[in-house]
């Protein structure tokens, strides 16, 4: 009649006539009657042995246990749906029966259709229940075993859930934490504040901290404080407010972050210094030139008789003092110890002030600079830091070109919400396998295969620091290269902050 496995039914009734009759009916309906029992005790034993899918259970039977007692025992060990089939519908039976969660309560004499429908519903419900339980188990397992502390509190702010993650982070076992007020794992000085915040959340049913990641100090069992990064969820189930807090100990990560920041700042500083020394040679040259122009024209002014010649000579002197002053001003950016803040600036301007410092050196190496500037929006950057990036880009391009002459093409353009500055050189290029390494600290090829006779050995920090700076600005640096053809480094800076400041 039905496909596949037949469902196994066990019939428990003390009246033989009744069980025989039911047997026939059930078999006819397409079920397999795997066993019969005529007392509570017998039903328990047989259920264990036969493992039926459904039990049809009479209530009033002779012996120590009636059907309800027997059901209770069976439910302790086995997960079998039980349907009561009884002649009694008194309140006291129904009330007792409810306690064992029966899947049906049928009054004798029940008609076959009713029995069949009840069995089918019971089988289906049991099936759904098992699937649901599996799901619940899966999530319970997940929540318990993730490395994050997961803590729930009720509307009295007492802890109602405490997973393994919380155990290992805080040091309290679940039984030590459950039922305790949440604030017992907070340092005293912030307890009041935190409670106030939670009360506010209950009241308004929302909070500024919901969904955000908060970092505050919490307390371990041993009394030590640690930085706990967590987020709060707030929900209501049956009019009861609940908070769930998920978080982790970030002390170590903080230390690593701080250390990384410290190393970066040191590298930045050393890069500034090496920037100055890279520039020193070229700038000395440039200054000698300027001094020559000035002193020569002063000498001329001294011996010339014509007033307009004197005037002209002095004008030239003045103009060149301005040029010298500009170089000094740009140079200052590198030696500044304090890192100043960000300001809106025209990228081409910032680029030009770097180029002004490198001009002499590039000229000496016979490298020409081709500018392909397009108009762009202003970008909010730290000017001094951006100069380090640009200097690095130009110095690298120059070193890649080496002692022979070449070209550096600098492009500025706006692509979507980014300002892009690209540096293309006609240098030796970078092998594909090394492309991924160029931004790593201390990676350098200079001093070994790089540069001409006066190339300075590289520190291997230039691109690392540049990348860090650009990243701090929310941007990226991309590199493309072809061996013997040259490389292109593209600095992409977002304009996001500009838009904000314009509002």
């Amino acid at each position: 009649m039905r496909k596949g496995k037949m469902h196994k039914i066990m019939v428990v009734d003390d009246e033989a006539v009744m069980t025989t009759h039911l047997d026939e009916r059930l078999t006819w309906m397409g079920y397999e009657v795997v066993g019969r029992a005529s007392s509570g005790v017998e039903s328990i034993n047989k259920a264990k042995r036969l493992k039926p899918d459904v039990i049809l259970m009479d209530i009033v039977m002779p012996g120590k246990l009636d059907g309800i007692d027997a059901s209770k025992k069976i439910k302790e060990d086995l997960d079998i749906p039980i349907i009561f089939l009884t002649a009694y519908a008194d309140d006291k039976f129904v009330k007792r029966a409810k306690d064992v969660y029966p899947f049906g309560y049928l009054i004798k004499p029940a008609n076959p259709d009713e029995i069949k429908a009840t069995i089918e519903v019971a089988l289906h419900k049991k099936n759904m229940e098992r699937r649901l339980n599996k799901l619940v188990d899966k999530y319970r397992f997940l929540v318990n075993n993730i490395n994050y502390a997961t803590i729930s509190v009720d509307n009295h702010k007492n802890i109602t859930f405490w997973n393994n993650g919380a155990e290992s982070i805080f040091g309290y076992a679940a039984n030590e934490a459950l039922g305790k007020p949440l604030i017992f794992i907070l340092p005293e000085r912030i307890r009041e504040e935190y409670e106030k915040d939670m009360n506010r959340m209950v009241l308004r049913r929302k909070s500024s901290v919901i969904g955000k990641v908060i970092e505050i100090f919490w307390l371990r069992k041993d009394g030590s404080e640690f930085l706990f990064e967590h987020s709060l969820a707030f929900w209501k189930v049956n009019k009861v407010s609940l908070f769930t807090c998920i978080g982790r100990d970030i002390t170590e990560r903080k230390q690593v972050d701080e250390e990384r920041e410290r190393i970066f700042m040191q590298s930045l500083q050393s890069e500034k210094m090496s920037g100055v020394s890279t520039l020193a040679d070229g700038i000395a040259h440039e200054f000698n030139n300027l001094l020559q122009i000035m002193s020569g024209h002063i000498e001329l002014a001294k011996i010339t008789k014509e007033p307009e010649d004197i005037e002209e000579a002095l004008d030239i002197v003045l103009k060149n003092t301005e040029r010298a002053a500009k170089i000094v001003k740009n140079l200052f950016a590198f030696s500044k110890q304090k890192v100043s803040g960000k300001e809106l600036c025209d990228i081409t301007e910032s680029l030009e002030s770097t180029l002004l410092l490198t001009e002499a050196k590039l000229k000496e190496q016979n490298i020409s600079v081709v500018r392909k500037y397009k108009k762009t929006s202003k970008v909010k950057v730290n000017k001094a830091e951006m100069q380090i990036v640009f200097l690095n880009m130009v110095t690298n391009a120059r070193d890649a070109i080496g002692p022979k002459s070449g070209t550096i093409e600098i492009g500025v353009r706006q692509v979507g919400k980014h300002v892009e500055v690209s540096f293309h050189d006609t240098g030796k290029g970078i092998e594909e396998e090394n492309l991924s390494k160029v931004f790593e600290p201390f990676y350098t090829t200079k001093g070994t295969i790089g540069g001409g006779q006066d190339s300075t050995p590289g520190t291997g920090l230039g691109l690392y620091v540049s990348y860090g700076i650009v990243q701090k600005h929310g941007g990226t640096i991309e590199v493309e290269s072809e061996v013997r053809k040259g490389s292109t480094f593209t600095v992409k800076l977002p304009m996001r902050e500009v838009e904000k400041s314009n509002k």
Partner: protein
Amino acid sequence: MKKTKSLNILVVDDEKEICRMFTKWLSLEEHRVKSALTGKKAIKLVKKKYYDIVFLDIIMPGIPAIEVLEKIKKISPKTKVIVITGKLMDVDKDLSSELRQKGASEFLQKPFQMKEINAWLV
């Protein structure tokens, strides 16, 4: 000041104002001065006319100055070439000996006093 004889002088420097400075100064001494902003132009001028003295800046875009020096000496071996430089020649011994070998007679280290060059104009 005793008048010396008038010389043909060429100044080669990519800085316009350096050229101007030489031209003005040397004109006061009544020399005939020409200037070139590039090595290419300098070579062209040397081919056309004899110059007693060429002041040649060592760092210029285009043809490397060392090649310019070589070409000038080849075209006009008797021309005295005085190399002007913003670099410290003492530091860069290799470069200065190479320049001497290629025929540079003197070095002028920027910044110098214009009075200094008068010594060579006899």
